[in-house]
């Protein structure tokens, strides 16, 4: 009796038991259900060569801002200014590319336009963070104020400088600027090259002939689309949107920081119990301000990719994106109260949301508004699930 120790009371778990208790498990299951459902409902089209490229593009786009929102939420704060920050950054870059650098300093290259814009958005992030930590006000209300402020500022700048709330038809910078290609161009071409190479092995002898009926032709096109071959029997898709690279970099860095570094420990400590973190010497305020700036950084990357991909921008860009980013973070298992969650969960959340947002393109009979119905439902379920996890960890309080 007396030689029983504390450690005997903890049951050893095997790999499987540990996995199903992981906080991301809910987000993973939802993601798998969506992948399977979408594949079946679209007859696989959602995951043919072009389908995959388009889906990954929106997943990466949402994932970039969700990562920024998630880190901030783990530290116990919200950022409602993500959407307007995207619009502001997009405006700033597009206007510089069209009208040149401020103060008549000459032509703007994409990189310079990005850099100057980033300085401004980081300054806004710093300002928001500083106001939040100094005033002790809820970040909800402070960033709501900046939501209006930045939306208004973006439109005013557009009208004052451009006489119009959008810039379109910019020249395509991707050919001349390496930077523009990395932001708005294509990456991982080898993936689709390999796909095409394998595809050619399965398409040997197939061709379009004059005596084919229309439905036979459609069937053949459909078949070839899974081999990354177009109707001229050439390679169809050549690469992912460059956003994917940025998503991987940003989410990868965020994951590493959270899981393996001192800063990660500080972020968790700040969101869990600010006072105890401070009492132990964690620079709580600097962590928060830094994360508001990181969120602004993510919004700027989002905007830069968008402008350099489409060669245009307008004042309505980034609409609802702050809400989607927060929703993804919550579905990914980040607690609304802070202090808990992982980037792996956020990635699952981003994949789920991206696929559902795009579903309307692959399932023609579906009404696009179902996306919001789905988001609302899943969000509510996720909050309940997260609350259960939180109670399990805190011992039920």
């Amino acid at each position, binding site marked *: 009796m007396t030689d029983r120790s504390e450690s005997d009371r903890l049951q050893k778990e095997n790999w499987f038991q540990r996995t199903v208790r992981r906080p991301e498990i809910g987000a993973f299951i939802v993601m798998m259900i969506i992948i399977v459902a979408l594949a079946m409902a679209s007859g696989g089209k959602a995951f043919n060569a072009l389908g995959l490229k388009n889906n990954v593009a929106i997943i990466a786009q949402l994932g970039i801002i969700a990562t920024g929102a998630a880190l901030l939420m783990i530290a116990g704060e919200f950022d409602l200014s993500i959407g307007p920050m995207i619009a502001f950054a997009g405006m700033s870059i597009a206007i510089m590319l069209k009208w040149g650098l401020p103060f008549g300093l000459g032509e703007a290259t994409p990189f310079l336009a990005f850099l100057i814009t980033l300085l401004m958005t980081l300054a806004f992030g710093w300002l928001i963070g500083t106001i939040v930590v100094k005033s002790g006000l809820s970040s909800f209300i402070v960033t709501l104020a900046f939501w209006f402020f930045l939306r208004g500022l973006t439109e005013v700048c557009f009208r004052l400088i451009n006489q119009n709330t959008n810039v379109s038809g910019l020249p395509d910078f991707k050919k001349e600027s390496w930077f523009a290609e990395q932001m708005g161009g294509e990456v991982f071409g080898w993936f689709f090259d390999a796909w095409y190479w394998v595809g050619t092995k399965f398409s040997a002898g197939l061709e379009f002939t004059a005596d084919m009926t229309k439905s036979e032709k459609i069937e053949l096109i459909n078949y070839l689309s899974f081999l990354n071959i177009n109707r001229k029997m050439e390679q169809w898709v050549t690469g992912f949107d460059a956003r994917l690279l940025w998503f991987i970099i940003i989410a990868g860095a965020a994951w590493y920081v959270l899981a393996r570094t001192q800063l990660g*420990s500080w972020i968790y400590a700040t969101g869990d119990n600010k006072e105890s973190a401070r*009492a*132990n010497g964690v620079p709580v305020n600097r962590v928060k301000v830094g994360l508001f700036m990181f969120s602004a950084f993510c919004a700027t990357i989002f905007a830069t990719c968008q402008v350099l991909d489409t060669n245009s921008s307008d004042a309505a860009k980034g609409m609802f994106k702050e809400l989607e980013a927060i929703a993804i973070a919550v579905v990914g298992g980040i607690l609304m109260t802070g202090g808990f969650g992982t980037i792996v969960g956020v990635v699952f959340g981003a994949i789920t949301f991206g696929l559902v947002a795009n579903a309307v393109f692959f399932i023609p009979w579906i009404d696009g508004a179902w996306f919001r119905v789905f988001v609302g439902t899943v969000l509510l379920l996720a909050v309940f699930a997260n609350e259960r996890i939180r109670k399990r960890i805190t011992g039920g309080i």
Partner: protein
Amino acid sequence: MASKSYMRVENVVKKFGPFTALDDVDLDIAPGEVHALLGDNGAGKSTLIKILSGVHQPTSGSIYVDDKKIFFRNPRDAAAAGIGTVYQDLAINQLMSVTRNFFMGRELTSTFGVLRMDEMDKIAHEEMKKIGIDFSDPSQAVGTMSGGQRQTLAIARAIYFGAKVLILDEPTSALGQKQQMEVLKTIKRVRARGDIAIIFITHNEIHSKLIADRYTFLALGKVIGAGTKKELAGEDIRRLMAGGAEMADLEQELSAI
């Protein structure tokens, strides 16, 4: 016993707006001694130790460490001067693991702030074991630990990080009998090292008599009595603990209800 003091507090006043939480408080703390800080609820004990640990700054008055006047701008300053505090609320984060709590704010890192997690797990486990708790899983969340275990974690943490002054704010108040004794034993063990001064806040008369060498009594923000165990031998400790109120007829009062 009365060795040279390590830390001295002189004429400290702390005001929260119009409210005077501490008024002209003196305190003397020496290594190898347990200094009991006693007083009724709201007397200002927690406020005083928050000043000693850099959470609050005094409105006026001075603090000396090793006879040098110092000013703690934040808890980091205090920790650097060897003040290790175990708060009433323990300054522990429920959702985080034992190891991450143990090293909170002072993580072991290699280049670029990368955590040396295995080493940290090992140290946390060993240090906790030294003073009485054997944990098999350092990644367990603290939220699921018992009160005494959390207390031990907080004390082990303070000692490991080189505390010269260990401040314990009501370490026994939320614990069961056996765990209370464990904590008192831990305090004795720390005292026996001889190089650490302990400030011990409690509402428990028996506990304070069991382990304290020196006493300071606070009431409504003022010191109403102080001295070593010997000096106070004739005094009524219980009366001083209650802020000077007569407690003798408590039993009668209670039975009259």
